[in-house]
């Protein structure tokens, strides 16, 4: 089974939830569509939605909520 990667387009702080007391956009094991938002990146006083960009049957996150993230870093792996 092939694995695809969702990479962060920019550096900042990664959030898996739209707000602190909301559920995560996606959980490990969920299916994703290319347009699904998988998280937010906070940088320059703005939150940027990160779309999956790829579709797959199972997503596995490699970055925790509220963790620093670098541009190009793999946020999650997706099984096709």
């Amino acid at each position, binding site marked *: 089974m092939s694995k695809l990667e969702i990479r962060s387009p*920019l550096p900042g*702080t990664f959030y898996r939830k739209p707000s602190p007391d909301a559920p995560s956009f996606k959980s490990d094991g969920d299916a994703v569509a290319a347009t699904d938002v998988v998280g937010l990146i906070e940088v*320059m006083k703005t939150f940027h939605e990160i779309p999956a960009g790829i579709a797959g049957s199972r997503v596995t996150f490699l970055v925790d909520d509220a963790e*620093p993230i670098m*541009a190009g870093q793999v946020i999650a792996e997706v099984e096709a």
Partner: protein
Amino acid sequence: MAIKVIHPGLATTVQDLGRPGYFHLGIPEGGAMDRLSLKAANLLVGNDEGAAGLEAVFIGPKLEFTQDAMVAVTGAEMPIKVDGVEQPGWTAFAVKAGQVLTFDFLKGGARIYIAVSGGIDVPIALGSRSTYPIGALGGFHGRAIAAGDELPVGEVRKATEGKTIPEALRRRPGMPTELRVVPGLYWHRITEQAGRNFFEDEWKVAPEADRMGYRFRGGRPLDFVAREQPFGAGSDPSNIVDSCYPYGSIQVPGGTEPIILHRDAVSGGGYFMIGTVISADMDLIGQMQPHTPTRFVKVDIEAALQARKDRAALVGQIKALF
């Protein structure tokens, strides 16, 4: 000649060396946050060092050229591609009419500077082509570029393809980044211990960092010397009677998170300033990503003036290549 914007990037603006002379009216100096990089990019494509280029932060734009052009990209480390073929940074390269300039993921630093032979020929506003988006002033219609924009380019200058700035003359922040600071007029407001802690602690760039200012977190909160707040000052011990804010000054609201004011800063307000980052180190801030570990290093004004001379000499070495 024009450049078509296919994708603007995150916040890509037209910048030159800014519009000094209006800060007392609340209009910031503006201009490239990393001035050396903009100057180098301009010189590579045959422009005057202060011509207008594009400053792109974290994400590069996707641009189509309507005519042949000489281009150079300096500043942050971000793979550069023309029709998918990688190009060297800090080097003049030719782009043919119809070709598309794109960028890969940022690898180091924060801001790239894209210079095009002839410069970005937007109208001059208060002596500068720099964009001040909050004031809707200068640049391309006073805002960051957007998809569909056509950026006018000035008359093409003579430039040599393949001309490059040697590695030794490129300036990048270290890890941790050291920023030299001259303690300020309000130094007396904090305790001796707090002053020592400020320079001993390791700070990190917070996500709230942009062209107006860079916020830092992670060091110990500052303790203030007790006083009865003077008339006109707010009630928090970090408040002062309103004062001018110099470019590079470090305010610490509530004594917790230092903010270094940068090129699009406000010109005054009511927070005490612990000191001012020396002019020679301001370019480095423009290349700092969120979470970059940072140390503030205490220097006196003589050291700051020497650093300014050294930096001017570095710019002189770059100019001597042309």
